[in-house]
């Protein structure tokens, strides 16, 4: 018994001469189209570049009103930015404030560490000792004698 494939192919075998013609035609077209290919590939880059440039210029020309509008908006933003300057920041005051805060924090940390290590808190003065003002020797002697 014939398979469905055999039946189908046998039924359409009459179309083969026409299919041969089609095949020949497509092959002829293929060989014709294949020939000028190398000639075209010699200068593809400049052509591509110029076409891209032309496209970009065309796009800019078409959107020139939008570009001008956007430019104006940016100019306005820049103008307002320059017209309202920020108040100057006192750097030295800020540095001083941060310095004293840092010192206080360090002292606090030391105190906490001392507590943890059961060390006498008195060893860590809360404030740095004030340097004694130099006095004349005669005054020093008088104070010792009275003591």
């Amino acid at each position: 018994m014939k398979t469905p494939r055999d039946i189908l192919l046998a039924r359409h075998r009459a179309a083969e001469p026409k299919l041969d013609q089609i095949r020949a035609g497509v092959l002829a077209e293929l060989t014709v189209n294949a020939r000028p290919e190398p000639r075209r590939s010699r200068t593809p880059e400049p052509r591509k570049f110029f076409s891209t440039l032309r496209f970009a210029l065309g796009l800019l020309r078409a959107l020139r009103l939008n570009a001008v509008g956007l430019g104006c908006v940016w100019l306005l933003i820049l103008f307002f930015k320059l017209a309202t300057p920020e108040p100057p920041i006192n750097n030295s005051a800020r540095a001083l404030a941060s310095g004293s805060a840092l010192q206080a924090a360090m002292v606090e940390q030391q105190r906490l560490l001392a507590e943890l290590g059961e060390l006498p808190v008195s060893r860590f003065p809360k404030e740095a000792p004030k340097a004694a003002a130099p006095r004349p020797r005669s005054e020093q002697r008088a104070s010792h004698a009275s003591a």
Partner: protein
Amino acid sequence: MLVVADDEQSTVKQARAGSPDAWDALFRRYQLPLYVYVFELVQHEQTSLDLVQETFINAARHLDGLRDDAKFGSWLFRIAHQKCVQHWRKQKSSPDFAIELDDESSEEQLDPREMLIRREQEEKFMTLLSQLPPAHRSVLLLHYVEDFSLEEIAVITGARLGTVKSRLHYARNSLRRILGEQSGPN
């Protein structure tokens, strides 16, 4: 596939390199199965020839799009299937679509009784095939004409694997109903 895969792969490779002989071999191998597939879907001789030609031209132009050389056959049938779908879409707007059936199948020298049985059987098969919905017909043709796997048929027709399975099942049952009845008593 019916063609030895390695041979076809090397032929496709040569075709990629632009060898006309390789293209000739590929087209020669697929022209009739493609035509059968397209004809059984569109049921019009000239349209089928045109679609086969368009398929060949498309294949030659877009061979770079083929990733796996071993799948050239299914890729070619996919192009043909898409051409048929495009044709159906166009056809919806043109009602003047005459159905031409080529009945010139060459009769070999057979016993008249045997010839009659064969013709009757063929006619029943072809009648049944043309009665199936296009989607089922397409699956059946791909399976019987080119022996494509279900996965390949899914790729060609753009349907899911489950859909292809059910379509093939339906089409086979319909075929069995006629062909089984024919071969059963013998």
